[in-house]
């Protein structure tokens, strides 16, 4: 059990970081002059090592997806920068593939053509081999010629994961990829993602609002507060995989993360944040029920 408190001071800026988020601030300018701008992220500093699996958790609307979108090159930060392999991110890049919550699998292509979409290899035989390999890895062998409309939500998300891996990226950005799935499917996919990650060792930045999910998947969990959010804590999960959520260490870390999020919840609520408050409360109930 290693717990890394107060990330702002103690983060060592090693040049070997795969992803480095530096002094990042994000404000959404309101197009309507009468409304005030929305401050989403404040002073975010984070370093992710090569091959590390990092989860970012926080209450709904806290800006964790915004952070991921900036890292993926889909959004421009107001201030600060994200470096991947020491290069500033300015646009999406095929080496860093994003997996979307709303599922970005192309419905007009069958499973094979979807998985092959981002394959860079020109040789058709190699290409087919790569496609077959990843279709098999996500357990969709036999569904190669099937179109997405005939697949379940979980299978579609598997296609998207295979499509991302087949592009042979260095980094995977996953934005609540299981958020729209039912509970059991989510559990199964978590286990599968763990296995795949253990084989592929990609650097993963994974956003979720589900604390259980974060503890089960991550090497480190970045806990964010309510909007405008800063990093509240970075928790190292030093439990061998596959992880059982009933493991005492997992429980303890979950309670700790929950405490960090919950502390924020009591008393300090900003005006106009009532909706997020309610969402956060319902999160609390769900987590308690699951125990």
């Amino acid at each position, binding site marked *: 059990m290693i717990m890394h408190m107060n990330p702002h001071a103690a983060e060592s800026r090693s040049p070997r970081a795969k992803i480095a988020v530096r002094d990042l601030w994000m404000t959404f300018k309101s197009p309507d002059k009468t409304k005030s701008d929305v401050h989403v992220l404040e002073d975010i500093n984070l370093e992710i090592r090569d091959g590390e699996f990092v989860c970012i958790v926080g209450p709904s609307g806290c800006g964790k997806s915004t952070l991921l979108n900036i890292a*993926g090159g*889909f959004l421009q930060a107001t201030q600060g920068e994200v470096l991947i392999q020491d290069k500033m991110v300015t*646009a*999406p*890049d*095929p080496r*860093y*593939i*994003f997996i*979307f919550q*709303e*599922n*970005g699998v*192309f*419905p*007009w*292509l*069958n499973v094979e053509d979807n998985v092959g*979409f*981002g394959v860079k290899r020109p040789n058709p035989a190699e290409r087919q081999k790569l496609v077959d390999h990843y279709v098999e890895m996500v357990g969709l062998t036999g569904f190669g010629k099937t*179109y*997405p*409309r005939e697949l379940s939500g979980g299978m579609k998300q598997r296609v998207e994961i295979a499509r991302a891996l087949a*592009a042979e990226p260095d980094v995977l950005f996953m934005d609540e990829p299981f958020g729209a799935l039912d509970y059991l499917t989510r559990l199964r996919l978590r286990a599968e993602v763990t296995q795949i990650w253990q084989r592929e060792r990609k650097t993963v930045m994974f956003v979720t609002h589900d604390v259980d999910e974060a503890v089960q998947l991550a090497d480190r969990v970045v806990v964010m507060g309510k909007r405008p959010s800063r990093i509240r804590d970075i928790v190292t999960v030093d439990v061998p995989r596959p992880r059982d959520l009933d493991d005492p260490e997992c429980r303890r870390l979950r309670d700790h993360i929950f405490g960090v999020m919950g502390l924020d919840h009591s008393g300090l609520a900003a005006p106009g944040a009532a909706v997020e408050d309610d969402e956060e409360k319902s999160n609390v109930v769900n987590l308690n029920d699951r125990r």
Partner: protein
Amino acid sequence: MRNKLESVLLPLAVALGFVTVWHFAVKWTGSDIFPTPRQVLAGTWELVEKGVLFKFVVASLFRVATGYLLAVFIGIPLGLLMGWFTRFRMALNPAIQVLRPISPIAWIPVAILWFGVSDLAPIFLIFLASLFPITVAAMAAVQNIQLVYIRAARNFGIGGLELFKKVVLPAALPQILTGLRLALGVAWLVVVAAEMIAVNSGLGYLIIDARNAGKRYDLVVAGMAMIGLIGLGLDWLVRRMETLDEVRWGISR
């Protein structure tokens, strides 16, 4: 199995009932001018024997095909560009929205003025009638593309013309196809009206000529039935396209 049988038998029963009512309605009212179903069949056969029916059907279909395909080849690219480029849409959309509600029938005098009594006049009218639904459908289709597809493609390094070919077009295709079906229906409606005035061949001409030259209402109704049957066939063709895997995901039923 039972459903398939019913889907044939039920419409057949309705058709039979309709023809029966029609027959007795003519008999009981003692009309001299309005034909019975049997007279319409005889009239149709007369048109076939004289070689007129086939000639007129081909003439109408040729005009529809020419005007419609012209509209497809101009309307789809135009709509795609309008959907994709905001400036382009800003510039052209008001003009299209003003021209669109003008019935193609209202253009008939203008068409005759420009093209005279020739094939060009109805072809122009069909082109106009099909162009707007196709353009507007293609434009809306592009605007409705889910952002996640564009973002995913960009992430894989796809941009420019390749993005258009690999993502924008296929993503827009189902809605474009719905527009194509709508436009074909309108085109088939317009050809009949255009032929009544601007030319002397085709099914529209057949109907107006049969009435003017001797009140041959058996031939009028024969022409009407032909128009209905061919319209059904055209719609069936487009519907077949809608079942293809590449578009079926986005066709709302």
